[in-house]
Structures are given as C-alpha cells and as structure tokens.
C-alpha cells in the first residue's frame, strides 16, 4: 500500500488465482490505526472481497469480522499484514491465537504478505529498532532466515544488521524500501521492486566474517517479460513486500 503506486499490490494480487480474491488485512502492528484500515479498503475493495481483523475493537463489534477468526482467515486467498511495531503485533497475535492460525494459513497455500513489520514477522529472526538500539526479535519462523527492512532508509541499518549477523543472528535477507522478497515454500524465488533503484541483499556470516551479496531485482514498472507463476500449489507461498510509504507506520 505505497502511497505513490500500486505496483507491489498488483504483484501480490497476481500471485492469487481468483477472479475476485478474498483479501484480509491485519493492521495489528499499527494498533489497528483507522487511517490505515481506510487506506486498505480504498486500495483493495474495488477488485477484491476485502475485510480486516481488528484485535483492539472486538468488544465493540467493530473488529471487522463477525465469524470466528480462524474460519475467516483460513478462507482467504491473501492475508495482508500492515506495518508498525513487530513486537507489539506478535504479542497481540499470540494472545488471540493468530500465530497458530497464520501458520496454518501458510501451509494451506494462502498467500501471506506485508510491508515492514508485515515482512519481519514471517522470518525466524528479525532486526527491529526499539526504544534505543535495534535487537533481534523472534518471528513466526515460517522462513528459516533473518530479515531486515528499510535497509536504505536509515543510515545505521546496514551496519546494525551486519553486526547482529556477526554476533550470531542467523543469515538472511535485507530489503530497501519498495523492494519485495517473494518466497515460495522457504525458497526465495523472485525479488521485485516498485522503484527503479531498489536493492536487496543476502547477508551471511562465514566464520564470523559477514558477507553481503546483492540480489537481482526486477523493477515492476518496466515492461515485464515474465509473468509470475500462479500460487495455489500444495507448497506454502509467502510473498513479502517490505515497502514503506512515506506515511505508513514505521517498522520497528
């Protein structure tokens, strides 16, 4: 949901094999911010069966979803997780059993995606900036790597991620704003970008020495020579769009 374009949203919708996809938004990481929910419906309701789940307004019957949460989420084609604070989000998810539901959704082939905190959460470990210094956070662990987002947006991020990996965080993937890592199963299949200059990297430690490898990125704005294959296989498919638009809640 970048403000200046729909390239990443169009890409993730192209992964779903449905004429009118069922898309559910989880704005937990923003504290279920109203403006974010509105932005989601503006973007997705024209072409999709759009819904959202609020974990803060369930008492007022305005949680977005009337059904049982598991039933609702497991009937989606795409689950879109918004940005914000990844620790707060994971805490609230655990309290409502959403962590288990999302693991099940992934195994069933429902496409999972999200920017920022909505990217970090799928990995085994994530680098997240708190009050003070960034530190590693344990995610849902669907993807056996670490993840770092906003790699270009904050000058210290690269050094912090390298240091964390040198200190024992597992190797993984870093993405600039506007760049999405698309995993099929646990394998990185495509790296796509809504910005011509967006980059992504694989960062590994070899005997305490950190190496960064630049990944091939396909700019989605150029005429696309390859149409991404459809999902819907028995394998889970997690697409990640670690992109942050100017006024989206900032990860961390």
């Amino acid at each position, binding site marked *: 949901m970048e403000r200046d374009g729909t390239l990443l949203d169009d890409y993730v919708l192209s992964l779903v094999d449905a004429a009118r996809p069922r898309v559910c938004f989880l704005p937990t*990481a*923003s*504290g*279920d*911010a109203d403006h974010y929910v509105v932005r989601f419906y503006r973007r997705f309701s024209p072409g999709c069966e759009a819904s959202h789940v609020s*974990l*803060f307004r*369930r*008492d007022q*019957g305005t*949680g977005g979803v009337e059904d049982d949460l598991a039933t609702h989420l497991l009937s989606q084609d795409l689950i879109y997780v918004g940005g*914000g*604070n990844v*620790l*707060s989000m*994971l*805490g*609230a998810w*655990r*309290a*409502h059993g959403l962590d288990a539901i999302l693991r099940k959704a992934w195994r069933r082939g429902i496409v999972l995606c999200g920017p920022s905190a909505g990217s970090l959460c799928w990995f085994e470990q994530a680098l997240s*900036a*708190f*009050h*003070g210094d960034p530190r590693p956070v344990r995610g849902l662990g669907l993807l056996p790597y670490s993840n770092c987002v906003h790699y270009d947006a904050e000058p210290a991020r690269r050094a912090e991620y390298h240091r964390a990996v040198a200190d024992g965080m597992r190797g993984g993937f870093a993405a600039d704003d506007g760049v999405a890592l698309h995993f099929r199963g646990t394998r990185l299949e495509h790296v796509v970008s809504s910005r011509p200059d967006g980059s992504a990297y694989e960062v590994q430690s070899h005997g305490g020495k950190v190496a960064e490898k630049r990944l091939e990125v396909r700019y989605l704005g150029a005429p696309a020579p390859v149409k991404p294959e459809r999902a819907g296989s028995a394998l889970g498919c997690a697409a990640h769009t670690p992109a942050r638009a100017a006024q989206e*809640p*900032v990860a*961390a």
Partner: protein
Amino acid sequence: MSRPPIVRIEDRSILAMGGGGFTMEPNNPLLDDYVLSLTRRTEPRILFLPTASGDTSAQINSFKARFAHRTCVAEHVSLFRMRETPRPLEELIFEQDIIYVGGGSMRNLLAIWQAHGLDKLLIEAWKSGIVLAGLSAGAMCWFGAGVTRSSGPPEVLAGLGLLEGSLTVHADGEPERLPVWLAAVRSGELPGGWALDDGVGLLFRGKHLERTVSSRPGAGAQRVDAIAGELVRTRLEPELLLGEGPSKALGGLDEAVEELRRVHRLRRGMGRGRN
C-alpha cells in the same frame, strides 16, 4: 541505569478506577487531580500508557488536554509508534512519579507489555514506590484477575497479581460483565474482589484498600466474596471527591505552572528538552 531503591510495602500505591478520568470524563477532572495528589512531589512526572487502546490518538490527545496545564510533567509512551519516544523503556519508567494506564483490551495490553518486557518493569516500578493508576483494563491488570471483553463476550483473564483478588469494571456502564464475574466468584474460579461503577477509584497502599473515592454522586462499589458457595456482597460507600489538590487553584494556574516549569528547566540545565 541504576534502579530506584525498593520501598516498604505500605509506601506502594495503586489507584484502580472502574471507569472515569480524562478518557471518559472530559469535563470532570476530579479523579485525575486525585491521581496527581497521590505523590508528594510538587510537580510530579506522569507517564501515560495507552497500550490497551492500540495507542489511539484520541486517548493520547485527551491525556495531553487534561494534564498539559496542570502542575506536572506529562508524557506518553507508544508501543506501536516507538519513534515517538526513542528512549529505552527502562529509563523512561524509572524517572516517573506516576504511571497512568488507559482502557481498552486487557488481553492485548498484557500480551504487548510482556512482548516488550514492560510487565516486569511495571512491577519493579510499583516496588520502588512509583504510583500506578489506571481505569478499566488499566485497573484490572494490577489484580489477580479481571473480566475482559477483549475477544467480544465477557470472560475471565489473569492480571499481573500485584493486588490480591479480582476486579470487574464499568459495573453500571457495561452491566453484562457483572454476571460473568459473580458466577466466576461463586464457582471459585476467581477469588473474591471488587465491582466498580464508572467514576469510582480504589486506592491501595501496599495490598491494603485504604480509600474508595468517586468523581460522581451516586456511583458505587461492592466487595463480593464466596462463602460456602454463597455470594456475600458488601456495599462500599465511596467518598465523593471535592476537588482537593491542584484543581482548587484554578485561577491563574497556567501562569503558576509555567513559572514553576521555567524554574525547573533552569535547575535541570534544560534537561533533555522535555517541554
């Protein structure tokens, strides 16, 4: 950083409100002024935790509107937009005199605090004599258990357990909680405890209930225990607050507060630019 020393149990304070204060009573400052009066500081530092609401701007703005012109240093901490407070939580918590917790989802509140390690910091804050105050979810969280509607229908949920017994809130405003609580106390699922109307606050010193206060005439509270499977209900008569403390000085308050802040800023050498 060094932690403040542990104080005697009778010097630890919690004000648990069934509802009321700046988020629910925008035109009635009695409970909030009472909160400020609970420390001996002339200009207490008060920190608002809006976690249970998802850090809504509405709660944060109400907090600012209520406390900005009172004799205190007021700030909030967001666990969703942490760049608003880019300081370690530990540092922020232990420099406070009062920590005020807003209402919302008790389940989310406790889970998010735990994810950030804030539950442990708040227990330490209480032990060091920092006053804890809160309404609704922000009141029940200090007890052994409360009755929450975090998932829709009312249900029992364990709290941090600083105070013994259970608490249910909004006894008048959201009456559907009360039967769930009474049934849980009767069956022994929950220990006995208190049911509070909106506008009523229980002041605990240590684990001992010291005062029952109210911002509204007619608001009530009851203590309920199960004895041999039967509920024994005792009505408490809250003392109606009369605006003791800061609100008495309403005329010219802003100017006096500003003067005091100027002096404090000078004394702190501008500190960290809090204002």
